[in-house]
């Protein structure tokens, strides 16, 4: 197990290097210049700025200067927000994304798991059909349709919540619900599929032949195996929720990391793009590792080898 974790960490390091390299070159391929903002800069200031970020150096030198800084854990200051460290931008904005993401995931699991289990146990009944139709709706209604609908109902019509923004303590509800509903749909479908597969296994028949009551069969005998696909999905789902928050943050005007990432791409803020991308990649690597460990723990066959 330790060896597994160690080799995975090593591999993760490689991933981070690749991500950094790809980002470094891709963002520089984009037409546009980090300092060509609204206000034109005097040539001397521009030259100074270019010097500070090593933009006056040949590309390969730039690469090693930036890579070296990242390797030391220095994410460099932003090019756009002068003098602000990228690490501070991430530290300020990521908690917003994380809060939304975690509450969305909680909602998704809280709704999706029971719905999927019930649909599997009551297969081909109206309960199954209605749960699965709702899930299909969740998959087909993209966040940017779902979001405005929820805004319209709960903010504009009922006036219970703010349409957008990040001012009150309740502002997390609508974005988290929007995202949660969509992931709940995926989780419900996965749960149903996984449970159905397990409920057809021979060992479930054994349990029934022992006289185990239906509820206990589901909880004690089927759930562990049936939830494996969901656990496997949790990694990507959490990753998708935290790194895919661009749209939610745009709809609900949230000061999260996603907004900064998209903004930095538009502004050609090279260092901030690099910093956010590497941060996202590191986050993903950690999440995937955690999800693998959790899966191994759930599955005795992997756990013990």
């Amino acid at each position: 197990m330790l060896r597994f974790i160690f080799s995975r960490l090593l591999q993760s390091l490689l991933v981070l290097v690749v991500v950094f390299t790809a980002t470094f070159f891709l963002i520089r391929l984009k037409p546009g210049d980090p300092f060509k903002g609204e206000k034109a800069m005097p040539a001397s200031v521009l030259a100074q700025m270019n010097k500070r970020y090593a933009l006056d150096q040949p590309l390969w030198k730039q690469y090693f200067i930036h890579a070296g800084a990242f390797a030391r854990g220095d994410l460099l200051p932003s090019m756009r927000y002068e003098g602000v460290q990228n690490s501070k931008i991430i530290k300020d904005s990521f908690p917003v994304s994380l809060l939304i993401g975690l509450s969305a995931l909680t909602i998704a699991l809280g709704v999706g798991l029971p719905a999927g289990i019930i649909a599997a146990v009551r297969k081909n009944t109206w309960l199954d059909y209605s749960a699965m139709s709702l899930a299909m709706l969740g998959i087909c209604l993209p966040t940017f349709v779902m979001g405005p609908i929820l805004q319209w109902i709960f903010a504009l019509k009922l006036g219970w919540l703010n349409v957008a923004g990040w001012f009150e303590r309740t502002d997390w509800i609508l974005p988290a619900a929007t995202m949660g509903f969509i992931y709940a749909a995926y989780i419900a479908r996965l749960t149903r599929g996984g449970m159905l597969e397990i409920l057809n296994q021979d060992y479930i028949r054994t349990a029934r032949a022992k006289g185990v009551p239906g509820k206990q069969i589901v909880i004690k005998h089927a759930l562990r195996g049936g939830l494996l696909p969901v656990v496997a999905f949790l990694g990507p789902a959490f990753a998708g929720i935290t790194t895919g928050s661009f749209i939610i943050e745009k709809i609900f005007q949230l000061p999260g990391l996603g907004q900064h990432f998209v903004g930095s791409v538009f502004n050609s803020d090279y260092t901030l793009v690099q910093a956010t991308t590497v941060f996202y990649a590191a986050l993903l690597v950690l999440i995937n590792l955690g999800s693998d460990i959790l899966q191994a723990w759930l599955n005795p066959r992997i756990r013990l080898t």
Partner: protein
Amino acid sequence: MTAAASAIPASLPRGRSLGQDAWARLRKNKLAMVCGVVLIAIFLMCYLGPLFCTYRLDAQDLELKATPPSAAHWFGTDEAGRDQLVRVLSGGRVSLNVGLLATAVSLIIGVAYGATAGYLGGRTDSVMMRFVDVLYSLPFMVFVILLTVAFGRSMWLLYLAIGAVEWLTMARIVRAGVQAQARMEFVEAARSLGLSNSRIIFRHIVPNVLGPVIVYTTLTVPAVMLLEAALSFLGLGVQPPNSSWGSLIDQGAKSMETYPWLLVIPAAFFSVTLFCLNFVGDGLRDAIDVRSGKD
């Protein structure tokens, strides 16, 4: 020699009757059939409809401004007085194009990669699939965004960029299928006949993993369309004056309180299309009776 030669064609008729069997089962699935018909209708409307529209795509009627649906403008007009009907239909064409072409790209890459890995097996296979695992753990939305800005906003590059990140699952599915097939008798037979590797892969193995691939392809199209719409929503997708359902929804969401039809109509078209694609995919899965290739 003769035994080997007869073993190969022997597998073909069975494949065809399997297809007929699946078609018979699919036909019994009412929901999937209805969805299929709706899809065809939407395709026809989007690809042929704009030809019959009286309004041009970018024809503005600034005096008219935004009006709700009427006899002259069935889907109403937007703030610039542009006819929504033609915009929604041609927007659909863009969305469907992206969906189909990006899926085709991912299909080509995924099938070639997965088939090669599964067929060669051994170390090559494990290295190739390890690479896929690594790619899986990249923040892929981030890369789609970076790719789209890096290579300009050309639509073709958009297809390519999306296809380039969507092939991973396809590769896994194909590999799993090929791996199972590569051990079958008729492949051994083909090998003993001295057929080349690539010929064996594409003539004998690929047809046999077609089922899962078809199913997954149908499910990739809506996923890709969703991605394109998300990019358009972020302002990274198709550029004006062109529109896609994603960009129309983006504009509609901004004015949903005052001009709800600008949001409702494209959103409805988009969602119904996704809905139908998913149900047809699910129906195909049941009809072809494939298990997901992931495990």
